[in-house]
Every structure is written in structure tokens, then in C-alpha cells.
């Protein structure tokens, strides 16, 4: 399951040189930090993740960080410097075995230690599927709360990267949202990544934290350097609007913002863009409130459309907002194919596909 050094190196280079990417480009839209969180510093997504783990390890001596190649800093450099700072017994490599990594993390958490496990790519989380779905998610429930693994967080790199092909591009969140007991979280930028990751690490439930790898270096923000948490299970209205609600998460949120900007400038359609942030359990209230105002909903994600998480959002909003909907709910997602290599620009739900969907919704005739 390990990726060769060559592949990793080329993936890292790829992020540095956007011009050779086959993927549709994304424009990262930075956020503003909450001023109450104090002093700030420029950080990319990698640095924000590193900073969050650093704070978590500093504030709780039981915390261990482990996975494949994390000791030298990780193949994406997210864990750089942490072994030197916290020691080999707290930051260490494991053998290449995802089911072992997840099971080991559960065992640490069962004994009250805080466990931060890394799965090198979300595409390789499937060998650990049994440990995550049958074990981690059900530990508290099946034991009547005698035992739990709430102190476990699994981090994995996630999403399209330009030429990751089938096994360095996947967005497997919907496989996990069908599992009661888990929390599934995806950040859209450095400020959020740090706050949400700290919340996941300290949350008393097993969390899966997916890191959009396209943003590791592309996303730079002024991130508060102190210790702060961002509440889980809360969506965020990133841009207010009145005609259409667009819901997304991770990298795709920026594509949605881009599309919203184009339609606003070109045809004067005002989009409200919502970042779901926590995919399970998700914040229906914020989404429903927005749809009751706009009467239109588009959900967009990179993962394949059939049984993707947009299907869940769509159904729930239809139940909750039936009388407010002025058009069918639209899903702009990846196609129902494996994630292809050279066809990536045509596979992804680009801003042009979102723009087209917005225009169709506005023109929808009863």
C-alpha cells in the first residue's frame, strides 16, 4: 500500500508547479482569522496541521503521532520537526500496514492515550476499513460505555491533486458517513484545518480528518499561532447570497466560490456558499435555513455522484424544505467512474459545470 518515493516526489513537485497540472485550476480564497484568537503568522495548510499537532502534543503528554514515514517529517512534510521536539516514543514510524495502524491507534485510545494516526493517502484507508467501521465506531456502543476509543484521530491526505490517478485522488468520506459512531471532518484552509484538527484530537469520539492535499502548499493564510478550537458539527456560511445555496467542503469549496463569483458578475445571480466542514454528523440546520431563503440548492463534491454525500444532503433538505424549493436539488459531482489520470480535467466537477448547473436552476420552469 505504500507509495513509492518517486510518486510522492512527483506529487509534491506537482503542487509547486501548477502549470503542468492537467486538473482544472482552483483559486484559493483565504479566510480571515478570528481576531480574538490573537497573534497570527503566515502558514500554508501543511504548516497549520503541523502547528496543530505541535500544540496538541505540547498540551497532552499522552499524545502519540504515528504512521508510515511520519518520523522524518512525513511524505507531505506535515509532521516535520515533531520527532526531534517530542521524542521517538511519541512520534514514530509504523510498519506498512494500515489495518495495524488503525488497530494500534484504537488500542492506545482504549487505554486513555491520545492517538493521532496517519494514513498516507485516503485511497489507502480501505485496509483499515474494518478497524474503523466495525471497531472504532462501535467501541463505546457495544460495551455499554465500559470502553471507548474517543481519543483516536485518523488523519489522511484527501482529494484530487492534478495527476494522482486512481489511488492518489480519492474522496472516500461517503463510505464513512454511513457509519454511526464516527466523526468525519474536512477543512478548506489553514485557519480552519488547525482549529478543526485540534477539536478532533480533543473530541471524545473517534474522528477521521481528511486533509485536501492540493491545498497543502497552495493555501496560505494568516493563522493564529495560539491554541484554539473550531467547533465540530457546525457548517459555515462563507459567502452570503439570496438566490441559490451552494454547499460543499474541502478543495471544492473554492471551486464553488469561484463559480459564485462568475455568475454574480456575469448574470447577477447571488449565491450563498456554505462550507459543511463536518460531514458526519452534519449541520442540517444551517443548510436548511439557507435553502428556505434562496429556494435553490446545489451540492458539489469531487467524489462520484451515486451514493455520494450530496445524496444525503439532498434528501434531508427536500424533507425539511419541501415548500420552499423552487427547483429540483442539483448535484455537481465526480462521475461514476474510478478517478482517471489523463482525463482529470473532464472528471472533476469544475466551476464551469457548477456555473451551468446554476444557470439551469435559475431558468427552471415549473
Amino acid at each position, binding site marked *: 500500500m505504500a507509495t513509492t518515493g518517486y510518486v510522492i516526489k512527483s506529487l509534491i513537485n506537482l503542487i509547486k508547479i501548477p502549470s503542468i497540472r492537467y486538473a482544472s485550476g482552483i483559486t484559493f480564497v483565504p479566510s480571515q482569522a478570528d481576531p480574538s484568537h490573537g497573534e497570527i503568522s503566515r502558514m500554508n495548510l501543511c504548516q497549520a496541521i503541523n502547528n496543530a499537532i505541535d500544540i496538541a502534543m505540547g498540551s497532552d503528554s499522552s499524545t502519540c503521532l504515528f504512521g508510515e514515514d511520519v518520523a522524518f517529517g512525513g511524505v507531505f512534510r506535515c509532521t516535520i520537526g515533531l520527532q526531534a521536539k517530542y521524542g521517538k516514543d511519541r512520534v514514530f514510524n509504523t510498519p506498512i*500496514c494500515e489495518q495495524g495502524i488503525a*488497530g494500534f491507534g484504537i488500542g492506545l485510545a482504549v487505554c486513555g492515550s491520545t492517538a493521532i494516526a496517519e494514513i498516507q493517502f485516503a485511497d489507502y484507508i480501505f485496509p483499515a476499513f*474494518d478497524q474503523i467501521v466495525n471497531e472504532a465506531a462501535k467501541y463505546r456502543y457495544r460495551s455499554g460505555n465500559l470502553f471507548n476509543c474517543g481519543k483516536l484521530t485518523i488523519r489522511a491526505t484527501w482529494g484530487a491533486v492534478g495527476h494522482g490517478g486512481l489511488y492518489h485522488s480519492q474522496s472516500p468520506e461517503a463510505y464513512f458517513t454511513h457509519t454511526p459512531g464516527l466523526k468525519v471532518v474536512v477543512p478548506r484552509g489553514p485557519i480552519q484545518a488547525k482549529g478543526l484538527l485540534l477539536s478532533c484530537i480533543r473530541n471524545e469520539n473517534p474522528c477521521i480528518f481528511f486533509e485536501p492535499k492540493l491545498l497543502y502548499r497552495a493555501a496560505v493564510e494568516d493563522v493564529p499561532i495560539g491554541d484554539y478550537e473550531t467547533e465540530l458539527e457546525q457548517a459555515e456560511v462563507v459567502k452570503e447570497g439570496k438566490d441559490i445555496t451552494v454547499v460543499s467542503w474541502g478543495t471544492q469549496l473554492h471551486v464553488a466560490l469561484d463559480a459564485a463569483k462568475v455568475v454574480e458578475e456575469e448574470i447577477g445571480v447571488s449565491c450563498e456558499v456554505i462550507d459543511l466542514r463536518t460531514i458526519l454528523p452534519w449541520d*442540517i440546520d444551517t443548510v436548511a435555513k439557507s435553502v428556505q431563503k434562496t429556494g435553490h440548492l446545489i451540492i458539489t463534491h469531487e467524489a462520484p455522484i451515486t451514493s455520494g454525500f450530496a445524496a444525503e444532503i439532498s434528501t434531508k433538505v427536500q424533507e425539511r424544505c419541501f415548500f420552499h424549493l423552487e427547483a429540483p436539488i442539483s448535484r455537481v459531482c465526480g462521475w461514476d467512474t474510478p478517478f482517471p489520470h489523463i482525463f482529470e480535467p473532464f472528471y472533476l466537477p469544475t466551476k464551469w459545470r457548477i456555473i451551468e448547473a446554476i444557470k439551469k436552476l435559475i431558468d427552471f420552469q415549473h
Partner: protein
Amino acid sequence: MALKMYQNMVTLYQMDKILYDSQRQGRISFYLTNTGEEAAQIGSTAGLNDTDLIYGQYRETGSLLYRGFPLENFMHQCYGNAKDIGGGKQMPIHYGSSEHHFVTISSTLATQLPQAVGSAYAFKREKNGRIVLAYFGEGAASEGDAHGAMNMASTLKCPVIFFCRNNGYAISTPTTEQYGGDGIAGKAIGYGIHVIRVDGNDLIAVYNATKAARQIAMENEPVLIEAMTYRLGHHSTSDDSTTYRSNEEVNIWQQNDNPIARFRTVLQNKGWWNDEEDMAYRQKVQKEIMKAFLYAEKIPKPNILSMFDDVYKEMPKNLQEQRDELAEHLKNYGKYYPMKDFEGT
């Protein structure tokens, strides 16, 4: 201690008989006996400290019994009644007790093995003098998790004992179809972990091996123990083992190599036990088990809405809504459900 081990083996055997029969009568939904493996379970648990953490597979009831888990609690779990400390969520025999440092059993084979390694790593960092022992069958040893666990225990130097009960069968599959090498013990050298194979029907051998393994594990060196035994009973109440093995085979083990009979001979030769005491003990324990059994049978099932508890530490909004939805539904349609067996909503 010798007497305690013997008495626990007898209690386990009697409890198995009563609960097995009760399943046959349809009083509990499922059961799984420990017959033939009493010494492997109890001898190994006796070789540990009481605060060492145990992860089991499901055929280690004797281990929890040895640690003092009350008879009623076994019964409450099998009935899934309101007094089950597991909340009535799991199938019978999926016991667990934080008080007795016995992690709740789950049905998924071998998943406990890498978890045991993680827990052992936590103990190593805490320097708390505890170790972890993980039980598993020879069939479970074929799972990927067994490989991952042994490799991680070795590379990360964890205070853990892997205790394999090699009883010859995984349901209907004989070991000749389970592995081609020298049993489970034969694998240990490849992982660089200490290993010993013992006569699993010899309580003293199991006890000594575990006690010695514990000393090695305390030095952060993992150990594998393979206890050779024989599954005398069916795999479970859902299995008829006569369809894949002969009665003669079972009888040979039952008569010639029964772990309880073997240890009883030792005790009687030492003059620590006699036939009268044996008879009296069996009658006494049978009464106690029946009493606990009949008591558990009368306890109502837990509150229906507790079904939604403990999914998460807190109850998310969607679950609160679903709980309310069920409560509302039961107000209208309760007569179609087994409401009377459950505590009021």
C-alpha cells in the same frame, strides 16, 4: 490457588452446560461453550497479574470467571436484560468488564490483536508495570490483523503476550486447511518474537508458560504462546460439528485428554481434593448457576430508547430526533411490538 483454578474450571463447565441447554430450549438466542479449553483459559489468566489488560476473542469466558466476574453478570449479558453492564447491545457471550480489565469482546476475528499492541504501547509509556494479553484462535491467526499485530509488537517493542488457542478447528475448517507451516508458533521466529508451544490441556504447563512470558513481556519483548488443545463442543449453538468430524475423534479427546480430569488427578494425588468434595462442589455450583440464571431471566430488558445511547459520547441532534420519532411511533403502534418485555419508555 490450585483449588481456585480447578473450581473455576468446573464452574465454567457447568455454566456452559446450563447455558447451552437453555439456548436449545430457546431461552437465550445464542451460546458458545468452552469445553476442552478450560485449562488454556484459566491457567493463562492465573499466570497474569489481576490488573494486566486482557483482550479476548470469545472463547475465554474462564478468564473473566477467574478474575471474579459475578455469575449473574454472565447471565445478564446472555439475556441482554436491564442489568447487563454492556447495555444489552451485543449477542450473548460478548462479555466485557472494565473493573476486571477485560476488554469487551466483539465478533470480528483478530481485530483485538493490533489493539492489544496499542494498549501495550500505552502501558510501556506509562511505565505502570502492566502488560497486555490477547487471546485468539488458530483460525483468527490467518487474518491480516494477526500479521499486522505481531509485526508491530516486534518493531515497536511492546509488553504484550499473544495467546493462541489452537483447538484444531475453525468452525468446520481443520488446521490442515488453515495453514501449511508449523502451526502458529512457527510464525513467531519470522517476526522476531519469543515463542513457546504448550500442552493446552495441562493447566500447570499453561500457567508456567504464561508466568514466564509475563516476565519477558515486562522487558518490552512480545511473546507468543501456542496452547495445543481440542474443541470438544460444537463451534457454537448454530453449528453441528458431527457433520465434519467423527464422534470417535471427539471421544478420544474427551476420555484421554480432558483438562479438568487431568488436573483433578493432580489435586487428588496431592491429597488436596477428594471425590466427596468434588461431588459437593459440583452440586453447589450448579445451584448457584441455576439461581443466577433464573434471576436473570426475570429481569426485564433495558429501556427501549437506550438503544440510542453511547453511539457517541454525547447524543447528536439527528439521533435525538430519531429517538423521539421511535417514541412517537411506539405511542401509536406499540401494540405490535414486544413492549412488555422492556422497561418503560
